[in-house]
């Protein structure tokens, strides 16, 4: 039988699933609720100078890149399988679209982080 290339996507899915399970809820709370409201955390934590400094640091770059790309690879993998679960028969188009979105997002994240500079 033909060897599946699923391990590549499954490994990215698993890494993204674990990372989002560990810190996903807290990240949403921080970036989407606490900082915008200035509740618990100072409102200027995500100000332009602060975030620029963060994204220029290698660790900040690595963290941002890992979160954005792995969350994407995790999500699209599940969405692709859910489309199959919902009865979508021809999988090739769905597969290209789903994993294409993750690949595009990964490339955009890498490009932006490089443009931001060091």
């Amino acid at each position: 039988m033909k060897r599946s290339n699923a391990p590549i996507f499954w490994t990215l899915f698993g890494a993204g699933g674990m990372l989002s399970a560990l810190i996903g809820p807290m990240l949403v709370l921080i970036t989407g609720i606490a900082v915008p409201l200035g509740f618990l955390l100072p409102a200027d934590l995500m100000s332009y100078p602060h975030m620029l400094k963060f994204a220029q640091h290698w660790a900040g770059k690595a963290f941002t890149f890992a979160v954005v790309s792995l969350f994407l690879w995790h999500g699209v993998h599940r969405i692709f399988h859910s489309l199959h679960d919902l009865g979508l028969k021809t999988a090739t188009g769905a597969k290209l679209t789903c994993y294409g979105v993750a690949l595009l997002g990964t490339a955009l994240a890498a490009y932006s982080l490089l443009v931001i500079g060091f």
Partner: protein
Amino acid sequence: MNETHKVIAIEVLRYRPELDEKPFFQTYQVPFTEEMSVLQGLLYIKDELDGTLSFRWSCRMAICGSCGAMIDGVPMLGCHTFLRDYYPNKVRVEPLAHFPIERDLVVGADDFIGKLERIKPYIVPKEPRTLAEGEYLQTPAQLERILQFSSCINCMLCYAACPQYGLDPAFIGPGVLALLHRYNADSRDAARADRMQLVNAEEGVWSCTAVGYCSEVCPKGVDPANAVNQNKTASAADYFLHWLPKGSGK
């Protein structure tokens, strides 16, 4: 019949290929006692009410794996499920989901048996030994790794619980993959490389989306979902290692 008997309505999905275009429900009123299983209810119907009803059974004690059915929508062994737990409501009995119906509660097991044969469900020794050389020994720890997975009775309840098998019958499926793992994980076996070719395929472990219902319905505590999903890790390792130049790694 003594008057203390209660009567339960058993609704059975009937299908007689020579008569019926499609399956339909037929309800039987069955007197029952506290200790009567759903299988015994079906036997009562066959003996006393309607001899045309077809279903499989043999041991009546949850070891032969023949009497699996959807009981109120859940895959269960008929002999392992009691009428008293459904009374005073009716109980609905349908053939195992995801399999083609041959007749009434009898489903086609050809696909399952074919897959079972393909995984080499037996120990392939590393080297042949003569009788004089004695047994293939195994430590308790080595036995522990396979014991749970060797409890499978091929009842196919896990297939009826697996939507991925229902959606795509090419998937090898939970029960057979659990047995595959049972032999691959056996310290006395040497056919792992052959079986990994099945594991590595899309129809192998990669059709599984970790729904996990297979393990819930297993009457023997085999946990096929665990067998399948730990083999995803094994298959991924196998995948990344096969990129290495020949001779390095394994």
